[in-house]
């Protein structure tokens, strides 16, 4: 019974944060750009979230006649499903988790590699040139960044001696992994931005060149799924960074563990939004070159040095 409550709680929490982020992002962006942002609906404009949701639900859900119908309908669901599944492995407190798995990090990597399908299939099923180009870019970009997303986490795994996220958090009692694993953190953060294809790495949907990229043909709630999926992705990557490198729910005892994790997560969500406000989009070949020629050697070097030091200290 308790377990079912936790599952429902995590699901509701993740979806609420993702929906609320629409408002948070718009307000923060306007703060940095010296505007007011949405402030009319309800207190502080918070009703904007509700208004946007009502709009998305009641929009006409149009499937183009030239689209591949079953795949077109399936694609947005895969994105939300894979990301929501990954929330299961995040420990929100000492005994507050859905799935205490021995392969926690591998579970996350597997789900994130399945998430690629959503975008690739969405673009392919739309049967539209812009969507197709977006899907091609997305598959190349996400395949590339997945490689060292996994490699950058291996340093943490070696130090904690486990793939289990609960063990990793416990292992950080002596000190957060951000200090010994700084390179790993940087690589993971950049790969995380690319994996959620957020600005500045939103090349698959670059609206300046590709209309809206892979979701050009989507409308109504199917577009809403892609939209919410993006914010869910940001929340997930932020929560993972907080868990893997910043001690997760560890913190001074005047606040409960859950609140500590939330504070850390929202800090990184803020950085994600700040990135959008401040950085221009790189060219596509620059993105790939940067990935293979800078980040991959860095991740491998980090792995090598961490391993050497760990063996030396034993």
């Amino acid at each position, binding site marked *: 019974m308790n377990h079912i409550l936790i599952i429902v709680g995590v699901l509701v929490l993740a979806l609420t944060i993702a929906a609320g982020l629409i408002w948070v992002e718009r307000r923060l962006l306007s703060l940095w750009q010296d505007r007011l942002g949405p402030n009319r609906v309800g207190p502080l404009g918070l009703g904007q979230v509700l208004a946007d949701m009502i709009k998305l639900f009641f929009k006409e859900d149009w499937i183009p006649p030239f689209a591949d119908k079953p795949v077109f309908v399936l694609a947005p669901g895969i994105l939300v499903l894979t990301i929501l599944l990954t929330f299961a492995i995040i420990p929100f407190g000492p005994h507050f988790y859905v799935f205490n798995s*021995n392969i926690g990090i591998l579970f996350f990597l597997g789900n994130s590699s399945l998430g690629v*399908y959503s975008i690739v299939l969405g673009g392919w099923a739309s049967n539209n040139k812009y969507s197709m180009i977006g899907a*091609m870019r997305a598959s190349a970009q996400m395949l590339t960044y997945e490689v060292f997303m996994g490699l950058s986490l291996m340093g943490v795994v070696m130090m904690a001696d486990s793939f289990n996220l609960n063990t990793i958090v416990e292992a950080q009692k002596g000190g957060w992994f951000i200090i010994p694993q700084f390179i790993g953190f940087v690589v993971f953060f950049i790969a995380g931005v690319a994996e959620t294809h957020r600005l500045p790495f939103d090349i698959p949907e670059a609206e300046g060149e590709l209309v809206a990229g892979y979701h050009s043909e989507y409308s109504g709630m199917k577009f809403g799924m892609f939209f919410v999926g993006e914010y869910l992705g940001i929340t997930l990557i932020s929560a993972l960074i907080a868990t893997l490198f910043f001690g997760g729910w560890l913190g001074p005892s005047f606040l409960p563990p859950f609140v500590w994790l939330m504070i850390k997560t929202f800090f990184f969500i803020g950085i994600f939004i700040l990135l959008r406000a401040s950085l221009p989009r790189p060219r596509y070949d620059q993105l790939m070159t940067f990935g293979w020629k800078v980040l991959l050697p860095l991740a491998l070097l980090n792995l090598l040095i961490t391993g050497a030091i760990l063996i030396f200290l034993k």
Partner: protein
Amino acid sequence: MNIFFYIAATVAITTTILAISRRNAIHALLNLILSLLSISVVLYLLDAQFIAALEVIIYAGAIMVLFIFVTMILNIGLENKQEKKWYNPRMWFVAAFFAGILFLDLILAVKNAQIQPVAAQVIHSKQVGISMFTTYLLAVEIAAVLLMAGIIGAFHLGSQEKKVMHRFLEKK
């Protein structure tokens, strides 16, 4: 536990048959991905968690994405006439005959074998790592050399000659 195995096994067999018989290449690949995922569930139920995770990450997540990528580039997703011709009963006959022999063989083998329960112990990633770098070191090294050859080949195929002249003055 058993019921999960039977569900996963049924899904695996059904999706594999669908993967062979779909004429649309992308639909076939989607079914193949489902089949790989259900095999991963079977491996997880056998307590081989690490291999189950690798099955998803490498096969379903990376290799099949490349398949779909190539299918998209070559634009062979739609059904073509040549393949339609292959799907008549005559073409299936020989293959079905030999597959039937194999199936009978399998049934006999399963029936006669002394069935032992699978060793009920969780195989941790640490054990997999240790055996990879001790017992199976040679195989790992050979696989690495093979992959290196592949990378060099891909680099050779993909490399372009450097252009030194102005593009309007180019010869050829």
